């Protein structure tokens, strides 16, 4: 256990430069926008006086490192600027984000659950029935679902379940469980393909290993050999990619929320883009970057918890 704690501390320390780099990139985004940075930060038809005021407020006249310093100071205090977009003008970006945070987290959580509860069993099944019918069907399924971009899969579900079958609502949170199921399924199934393939190849490798044959030679029943020993070994590589999966889900959430008008951070960002609301966009990107970093961290720790060999590394 002590080695696990030191591992966590090491990972936390390593995460710090990542966080700093992320903030740096987000900070620099302002300078990538076409034209004068001020125009990204001001509402359309702003007067010269207003522009000056905005320059003042955002410290655009300061030297770059000072600006960056102020930027870091602001965000560490939770100030992500104010929205300049239509309909949300002058509202603090951070409050816009916090009211939607839980929605996105809920969506991602359920999506992850769906992805893993589909992917892992399917992967195991495909491995145990290698090259037989079940395996081939599963492989084709993963191939096709992997090739579908999330937004298209989402639109397809939308068409099928909302428009044609009318079973589920097309947008918003009004329908309770019903309205989250489609976007979550879209995310979940989209990622399940990868999980399935990884699980399958991992399982195939593990069941050929010496220690599995050893276990059989000890008389351990086959069910335990597969589901207690092989599974625990095989699932490790799959868990290593949970962090990457989380990253994928964050990106996927943006798309899926847009398709289903699910009021989360992703939709906020998309609307922000359409409204040329740079502060909102920047705030969302920052928050999402944090999600990704934290998600990776949690996944690393979880992995070290499950596989004791990693704690040394």
């Amino acid at each position, binding site marked *: 256990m002590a080695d696990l704690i030191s591992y966590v501390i090491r990972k936390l320390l390593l995460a710090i430069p990542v966080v700093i780099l992320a903030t740096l990139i987000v900070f620099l985004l302002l300078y990538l926008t076409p034209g004068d940075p001020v125009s990204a930060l001001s509402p359309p038809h702003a007067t010269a006086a207003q522009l000056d005021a905005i320059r003042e407020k955002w410290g655009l006249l300061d030297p770059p490192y000072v600006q960056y310093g102020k930027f870091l100071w602001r965000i560490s205090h939770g100030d992500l600027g104010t929205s300049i977009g239509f309909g949300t003008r002058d509202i603090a970006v951070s409050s816009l984000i916090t009211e939607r945070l839980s929605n996105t987290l809920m969506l991602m959580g359920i999506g992850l659950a769906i992805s893993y509860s589909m992917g892992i069993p399917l992967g195991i099944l495909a491995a145990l029935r290698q090259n037989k019918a079940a395996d081939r069907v599963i492989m084709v399924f993963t191939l096709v679902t992997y090739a579908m971009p999330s937004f298209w899969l989402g639109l397809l579900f939308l068409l099928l379940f909302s428009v044609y079958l009318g079973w589920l609502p097309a947008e918003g949170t009004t329908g309770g469980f019903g309205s989250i199921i489609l976007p979550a399924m879209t995310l979940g199934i989209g990622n399940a393909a990868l999980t399935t393939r990884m699980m399958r190849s991992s399982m195939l490798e593990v069941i*050929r*290993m*010496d*220690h599995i*044959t*050893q*276990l*059989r*030679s*000890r*008389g*351990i*029943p*086959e069910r*335990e050999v597969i589901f207690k*020993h092989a599974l*625990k*070994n095989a699932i*490790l590589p799959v868990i290593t990619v949970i962090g990457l999966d989380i990253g994928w889900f964050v990106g996927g959430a943006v798309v899926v929320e847009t398709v289903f008008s699910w009021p989360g951070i992703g939709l906020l960002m998309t609307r922000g883009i359409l409204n040329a609301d740079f502060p909102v966009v920047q705030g969302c990107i920052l928050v999402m970057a944090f999600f990704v970093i934290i998600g990776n961290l949690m996944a690393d720790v979880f992995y070290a918890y*499950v*596989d*004791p*060999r990693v704690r040394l590394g």
Partner: protein
Amino acid sequence: MTPGRKPILEIRGLRTQFFLQEGTVTALDGIDLTVYERESVGIVGETGCGKSMTAFSILRLVPHPGRITGGSIQFKGIDITKLDLDQMRGIRGKRISMIFQDPSTSLDPVFTIRQQLGEVISLHQNVYDRAQLDARILEALRLVRIAAPESVMRQYPHELSGGMKQRVMIALALSCSPELLIADEPTTALDVTIQAQVLNLLKDLIRTTGSSMMLITHNLGVVAETCDRICIMYAGRIVEEAETFELFASPLHPYTQGLLAAFPKLGEQKDELLVIRGTVPNLMKPFPGCSFVDRCDRATEKCRSVRPTRMEVSPGHFVSCHLHPSGGEVSRV
């Protein structure tokens, strides 16, 4: 060989084949082998001759796409080739156990020693009480002379040295006092200094538990130390079988002679190491005669076309070679 000892394992005409896309590989081509109670039999041969496959066949662990295609394996009167997998599981680990070659890959890396030993003991000895189980685990670890069993118990395999891991393997194999222990190259992956320790441990333990041992190796030095009888295998067939001393004193089969001659002995002056010329035959092509024919200095035409039968040349000393046709019938002991 002491008369009156009962055989515990009798293999007759065992054939194991692998059905690959490119062809069929005959890993074992009609093996006859007997193991008696309380004895150690060594199986010696080069890599690929089928010695490990013999062990896997006995335990019915032949990996796909291989399977046993002929012969019988009688274990104390039961033909285990005819058992179903459930019955087989009752034998594995409990009545026949196996130690694998590389201890680093043979222990499950994500379970502690305690969990792995506990699993085997509770399964075969029906012990479910935690305290009792732990006691048995410690006992097993002490049996294999592990110094600090309480702490080793809680460790993971990767935290142990090679020698320790092999001892744990031995503990796992002997924890339920099997009647037959199969040791597949138990010392090959270990340092030379540890090898002797492990071999001595094995010898002592089987004497204590009264088990028989089948020791598989390519190292003649190892079997000389540990085994009562030795079988020499080549290309899926057993070519010679005798008591240890007899085999070393008068090897009959050209392959055995070659093996012994190639072994440099301490104190001997040698300019070059003797080598048996040629390479192992392709097990995919069936050959009617003796499998050693291309490498044998004294091969005759008959050797190429007629497969030599197993002959008892002197009491307890069997050879399959046309050079030694005396002794009459194939004797079934």
